[in-house]
Every structure is written in C-alpha cells, then in structure tokens.
C-alpha cells in the first residue's frame, strides 16, 4: 500500500519532468523555426536581386527598372571608414584610461558613462548629431553620418578593448617596468601589441554593429540617389536604401531592398564569423 503510493508519486514526478522538458522544447523549436525562416527569406529573396548591375551601377530614376545600388555600397564604406577613424583612437585612449586607473572613482564614472552611452537609442544619437553637425554646416553630410556611427561604435569598442587589455598578464608590464622602461612606453610597446587581436576584434564588432544602423543616418547622412564621394555632402547607405526602397511602389525596388538586406546581413555575418574563428584559435 505504502509502496504503491510511493510508486505513483514517483511516476507523477517523472511525468512532470517529461512534461516540463516538452514545455521548454516546443517554444524553443518555434524560436529556431522562426530564425531559420527569417534567414532563409533574406537569402532567397535577396539572391534574386543580385547581378553585376546591382553592385556596379547607380540607381535608375524613379519608376525605371534596372540599375544598381553602388551609391549605397560606396556610401556605407565611407560612413564606416569615417566612423572607425573617429572612434578607434578615442576608444583606445579611453580603454587605456580604464586600464591605468582601475578601481578609481573617475574610472568608475567613465565606465558608467560608457555603459549609459551604449544604451542610448541610436535615433537619439541621430537627433543630437543633427544639431551638432548638420545645422552648423547647413548640410546633411557623410561626416555627420560617420560621427553618429562613431558614437554608436565607441562604447562597444571601449568596453571590448578594455576587457582585452585586462587579459594581458600583469607580469608583462611588471617585467618591462623592472627593466627600466617608462610606463607609457611599456603600455604602447608591450600591452597594446599583446592585445592586438582583441583590438582588431573590437573594431570589427564595432563595424558590424554600425553597418546596419539606420536610425542615426536618416537625419545625418540623409541618403543620396547619386554616387557621391564627398564627405561634406549627403551620401546613401545600404540600410537607408532598404528603408527607402521598401516604401516605394515599385516591385523592382522592393527586390533591390531585399538584395541590399542580403548584402548587409552577409557583411555583418562575415565580420562576426571572423571574430568567432579567431576565438577558436
């Protein structure tokens, strides 16, 4: 009798266990299916738009089919280049500050600021850069767009570079100091090279993050139907093209929006994969 009660309780527990497993596996299956669906659609719909013209020709006038999005590809390169030039030195210096002053009140304040910056919605960055750069220069520009993207990158890169600096064994620095090397030389010649791969990783992650940002570009880079190489003028960008083209009434442009989406996703994924493969080594 007692034995039976025990057995049935055991069975109930085993059943609950199986039920729980099912209850978490099914939603996870839904998540996985959704993710695969989204990826598959981007690849399939995007691949249809890809041809030589897509990469090398400019946008055709409204309503005409054909042409390409070279203006957006070049624009994205310009924006990301500007952003890296602006963000890399500052994130290096700021992460070195965190490294050199670790534990101090000021370093904690800087770390908090960087965390908060990281949480700022990117549209807010766009609005502020608009009033800082676009209004005084009286023109939308690649410069403004690049600056906005730099502020998107900066907090991410700083915290990643700081983490990689902290991974360098302290004995490296101590050995250099013991040999009489000035501290700043030891940092530049020993610590920085030792974390070079971390810095590279942070930079590519920063680029990957900024490449897909649209919101900070709408009021800064603005977009441009023509290929432009001027930093002082408005430029197009891949995410801007997606946003603009899908709103248009033309099927050809819708298809190009998917093509641009595929290009963007591939670019971001390749950058992420480079990081992943480095980590394994």
């Amino acid at each position: 009798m007692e034995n039976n009660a025990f057995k049935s309780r055991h069975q109930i527990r085993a059943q609950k266990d199986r039920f729980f497993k099912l209850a978490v596996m099914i939603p996870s299956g839904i998540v996985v299916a959704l993710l695969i669906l989204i990826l598959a659609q981007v690849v399939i719909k995007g691949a249809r738009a890809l041809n030589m013209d897509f990469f090398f020709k400019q946008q055709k006038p409204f309503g005409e089919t054909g042409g390409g999005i070279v203006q957006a590809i070049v624009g994205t390169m310009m924006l990301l280049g500007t952003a890296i030039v602006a963000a890399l030195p500052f994130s290096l210096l700021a992460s070195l500050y965190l490294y050199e002053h670790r534990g101090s009140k000021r370093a904690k304040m800087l770390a908090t600021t960087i965390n908060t910056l990281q949480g700022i919605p990117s549209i807010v960055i766009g609005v502020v850069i608009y009033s800082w750069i676009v209004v005084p220069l009286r023109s939308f520009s690649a410069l403004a767009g690049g600056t906005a993207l730099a502020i998107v990158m900066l907090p991410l890169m700083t915290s990643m570079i700081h983490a990689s600096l902290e991974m360098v064994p302290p004995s490296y620095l101590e050995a250099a100091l013991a040999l009489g090397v000035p501290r700043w030389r030891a940092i530049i010649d020993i610590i920085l090279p030792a974390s070079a791969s971390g810095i590279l990783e942070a930079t590519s992650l920063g680029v990957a993050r900024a490449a897909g940002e649209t919101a900070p570009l709408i009021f800064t880079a603005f977009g441009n139907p023509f290929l432009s190489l001027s930093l002082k003028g408005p430029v197009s960008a891949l995410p801007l093209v997606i946003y603009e083209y899908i709103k248009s009434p033309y099927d050809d442009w819708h298809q190009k929006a998917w093509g641009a989406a595929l290009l963007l996703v591939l670019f971001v994924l390749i950058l992420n994969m480079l990081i992943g493969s480095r980590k394994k080594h």
Partner: protein
Amino acid sequence: MNDRRFNALLGFAALLIVFVFAGFVLTLVVQSLPAVKQEGAAFLYGSEWNPVTARFGALPFIIGTLLTSAIALVIAIPLSLSAGIVMGEYVRSGWLRSLLNTLINVLASIPSVVFGLWGIEVVIPLVRNLAVLFGAPPYGAGILAASLVLAIMIIPYMSSMTREALMNVPAGLREGAFALGLTKQEVVTGIALPFARQSIFAGILLSLGRALGETMAVTMLIGNATRIPDSLFSLGNTLASVIASQFNEAASDVHRSAMMGLALMLLLITMIAGWFGRTLMRKGASAYGK
C-alpha cells in the same frame, strides 16, 4: 612624450567622452525648451499632437512606446526563457548547442531595418488576415505587427542572457540536488531558476531597454498615426518612430523642438531601464560570489 603627458592624453579622451554624454543631455534639454515652454506639463500628458495647429502632447507616443514594448515582452518572455533553459540546462554541449548558439548570435546581429523589411513582407499580411478575422480595420500595420517583430528582435538577447545566468549557477548546487534524487525539472525550477532569477530579470530589463528605443523596425510597421491606440490592430506611433518619421519634415521650430523633447523622454526612459537592469545584474553576479 613622458608618463605625465601620456596620462594627460588618456585623461583628455576620458573627459571628452564624459563631455559628449553630458552634451547629449544638455543639447536635448536646451533644444526642447521652446516646446516645453509652450506646452508646459501638457507636453507629457496632452493627447493632441498636431504640427499644423502647433499643439504638442506626447501622450499618444508614450503610450505607444510602453504598449508595444509591453506586448513584445509578454510574447518574448516565455519563448526566450524556454530557449534559455534549453541552452543552459538541456543541451550544454554537442552540435545542437552550437547550432542554437550560432542561430541566436546570427539573429542578434541582423540589423533592425532588415527585420522591418521582413515584417512588411511577412508579418503585415498575416496581421491583416487576423484583423479581418476579428472584424478590425484591415491595415496590417499597427501595434500588433510592431510588437510581434519587436518580440522576435529581443528574443536573442533575452535567451542568451537567461542561458548565461543558468550556466553560472554553481555546479555543486546542481550536483547536490541530483544526488538527492531530484528530477531535472525539479532541479531547474527548484534550484537553478530561483538561484539565477536576479540575473534573468536583469536580462529582461535590458531587453526592455532595447525594445523601448528600437526605431527602424517599429517605424516601418506601426503605421505612423498620431493617436492613442485603442486596440491591438490600431495604428500608432512610438517616441522613436515619430522622431524617425517626422523629424526631417518638421516645418516649424517648435515642431522640431517638440521632437527634441521626445528624444529626451526616450533617452530618460531607456536610461532608467538600463540602470535598473545593470544594478540587478551586479546584484545577481554578487550572489554567485556567496
């Protein structure tokens, strides 16, 4: 170059970053003053937003922001917790785990505008059919479409943070529980989840911060209508989406200033969510130390 100059250079960069952030807040405060002066407190609770008559009440957008994020959380929490539990408890190694990890990472890196594009082509027709079924106006775009895509977008963050929280539960606790004869389910719901609850909740808050500030996908899917949403199928706007869709077209200075005010509100709301999230995260992390 010497140590002092080197340190001065580092200090300069650090100070500049702090100034940039302070400048952000200051710029938004100063630029939003004209609109705040004109509207007073009604800027926060006024329900009329009309650039033509120059009335600027942000209530429809505040409600739109909170509503879409809340619905997204309701959808995303069960899915993300499940996925996090599976990754953190059931498949801790092997190919299935790397597949799940890769998929989640890939999804986390897909730009928001691509989600918007996907939503326009897939979610909007779906919601339109649903609306017809429920006898609602068949816009397709609206609160529901935006919330659905928002939910999908925050799933990767929430589930990977749940996984991390569960992976950090000390192995001894789990082993002890198994040794006492507890089933897997009892270990997860009785030991692991309660132990990791602060970190999991922090993950939810940080995801909320992302959802509140998310712009592009929402702008493309919410229908951009200035009204207080009265149903799931209603068109609407969030703080972020109204800035994205109206800022460049702002005709008057007050309109632009009002938009700066919206940006300030958005900044404050996401800062509060982020601050709570990080504080909880620290608390959760310190619990592991005990």
